[in-house]
């Protein structure tokens, strides 16, 4: 008897190939790359203006911040396409048809995940070309830490893709998936804002209910730091800014564990809910 986590590599390859080529042939990927690089260009132009205005800029990695902005935009794009990937096929009934064939939940999920990661690798190629061109045009250094940041981003994006697939496995409508994704990300943001607001106030000045709320938010905020996929990206970039190899390695490890847990959970949910669920 085949286990629920077994998957036929041939089927997976066929699914990856189909989805990957279909996305490559669309305009979405190129538009997302264009928007993200345009944002980086805007920031870099401001940077260059600031150097002229302030006489100097002292930095070890002037391209890391523009890369981070590009990564955030690309991550949103990948989060959206991964969140709709399963629910769209459920919605259209394609998933049911696929599951009559030699496709099971794990091979399907692995195919979706691999396709999204391959799309990101295409983005990585764009990043390398873009930042090499930026460096030769402006003389801003293409540093070793930028290469480290791009490499680490593969693992951070893996978290975002797994998170998107996890939400997608929970929902059966495309619109609901997007609302959930946006809602959850906004909730993370709201928690962060309220926590920062309450922490900046004097403990003695807070009423007991606000004090309780602050402590609760502190715990929740610590929790969201491990749940939100974007915090893995943030943590990874911080480890590069700090220059700690230990934190860098830990960021990669945490991202792998996070992705693995969410992918396994997605398989279990898909199994439990069925192809129409």
């Amino acid at each position, binding site marked *: 008897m085949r286990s629920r986590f077994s998957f036929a590599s041939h089927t997976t390859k066929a699914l990856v190939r189909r989805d990957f080529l279909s996305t490559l042939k669309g*305009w979405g990927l190129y538009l997302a*790359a264009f928007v993200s*690089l345009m944002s980086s260009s805007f920031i870099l132009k401001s940077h260059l203006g600031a*150097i002229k205005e302030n006489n*100097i800029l002292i930095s070890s990695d002037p391209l890391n911040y523009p890369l981070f902005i590009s990564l955030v935009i690309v991550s949103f794009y990948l989060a959206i396409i991964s969140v709709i990937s399963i629910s769209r096929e459920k919605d259209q009934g394609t998933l049911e048809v696929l599951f009559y064939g030699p496709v099971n939940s794990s091979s399907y999920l692995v195919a979706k995940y691999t396709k999204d990661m391959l799309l990101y690798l295409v983005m990585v190629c764009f990043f390398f070309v873009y930042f090499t061109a930026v460096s030769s*045009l*402006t003389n801003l250094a293409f540093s070793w830490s930028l290469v480290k940041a791009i490499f680490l981003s593969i693992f951070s994006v893996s978290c975002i893709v797994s998170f998107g697939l996890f939400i997608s496995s929970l929902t059966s409508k495309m619109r609901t998936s997007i609302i959930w994704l946006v809602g959850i990300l*906004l909730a993370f943001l709201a928690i962060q804002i309220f926590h920062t607001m309450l922490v900046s106030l004097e403990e*003695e000045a807070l009423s007991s209910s606000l004090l309780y709320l602050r402590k609760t938010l502190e715990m929740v905020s610590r929790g969201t730091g491990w749940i939100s996929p974007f915090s893995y990206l943030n943590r990874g970039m911080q480890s590069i800014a700090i220059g700690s190899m230990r934190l860098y390695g830990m960021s990669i490890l945490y991202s792998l564990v996070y992705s693995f847990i969410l992918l396994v959970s997605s398989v279990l949910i898909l199994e439990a809910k069925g192809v129409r669920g």
Partner: protein
Amino acid sequence: MRKFSPLSALILALLLGALTSPSLAQAPTLREQLVYSLNLFDGKGYTPGFCPRSEDTIYLIANENNAVSLRSTLVYFWPITGNYVAGFKALNEEIEGTLEVMKEGEVTRSLGKEENVTYYPEGFFAENSRMYLGEEAHAFFQKYEKATEDYYGRINEYYEKMREYRDAFNKFLEDLSKRREAGEELSRAQVEAEMPTEPSPPEGVKFYVTPLRKDYILNLPQGVYQIRMRARDGTIIEDSQKNLVVFARRREGGVGYEIIPGNRWTMRENLDDPSKTIYAAGKNTLYLRPFLQDEYNELYYKKLLDPQNEGTPERWMWVHTSSLENVLLSFLKKGKLLERIKKAPYYVKQIPGPELGYEIIEYKEEEFPGRAPTFEGHKLDLSPVLEKGNYQLRLEKREGEVLKGSERKILLVRKENANLLYLISIFPLIVGLVVFVQRKRSIS
């Protein structure tokens, strides 16, 4: 059926937050607290501060004298900085007893108070200072008192000489006018030669020594300890227990720079880490001040400066310890020496006008009598005719003898290409277009 709407939840949360935010315009509430008053060695001098009840750990540099004392004072929260502030002027009651230092739960030292002074060899406003204890503290304080006394003596002498000078000058003017009335013709050189000389004011005391104080002196090897205060009746004073983290520098004797940009001399920048690069554009004049520096854990060091500070335990930071003298700054391109620059004093002269409002000129004592230079540094002119590219900086003790760790990079950026950045962002769309055309062709 009830549906969860994230948007409604967010609006509700925002409203709740707005309603529950207390007003920040209220007067701060003063609370009496037992705090540790601190005078801690920060790698170059002594930093005063205090440790409020909210902080449970004090951070110290290993094997250096650090003065602490337990005091009762009024503490209030300052919302602008988000920190507690001590009102020592309103209440500053010293708590007497024995300070116990514990390691792994056992008392290893019981300390009484010791007399101490802080000695500032370059004056009170200079950064470097040392602490002296016991007999040495007395000797330094007496030396300072004697120097101050001598200075006042010289000042009195100066006033007396000035009075004599004024009398002599008035007499000289009277004689001069009489001689001129008598028809004597005097040349300018003759007048100047006969004119009485104005006495110069005496030099002030260059160093400073604080008045004698009595504190508990902590000089401990690296490690984690606890401290607490035992009252004279043998009981432990409540709220006096704190953790003590005694840390050491990770690296020492590095070379760092402080950079004073010519167009905003008050906005100084540090170039401490060797991995950092200076990016410059257009015409620049930079004044570089080299320093010796030690590297500390960022969290520990920031907590040493103020126990309420925050920091990152994984990050390291350089701290300037003393200015580097008698070195030459070399400016190179691809290893080829372009210029060797000596350190010189500079004076910032305020000028009226719509532009910068000041001018930085080389200081010469005869041009600015009675004034000190604003700063000293190595002046590096980055002319606009310099080819855009990569340059290097380094310090040399003597010509050709490079100071280890002093190398830094300067990259001149090409700002004129800034608009091309938008153009290269388009290339993913070009790739998309190529894919689209290929697909069209394969279909047809």
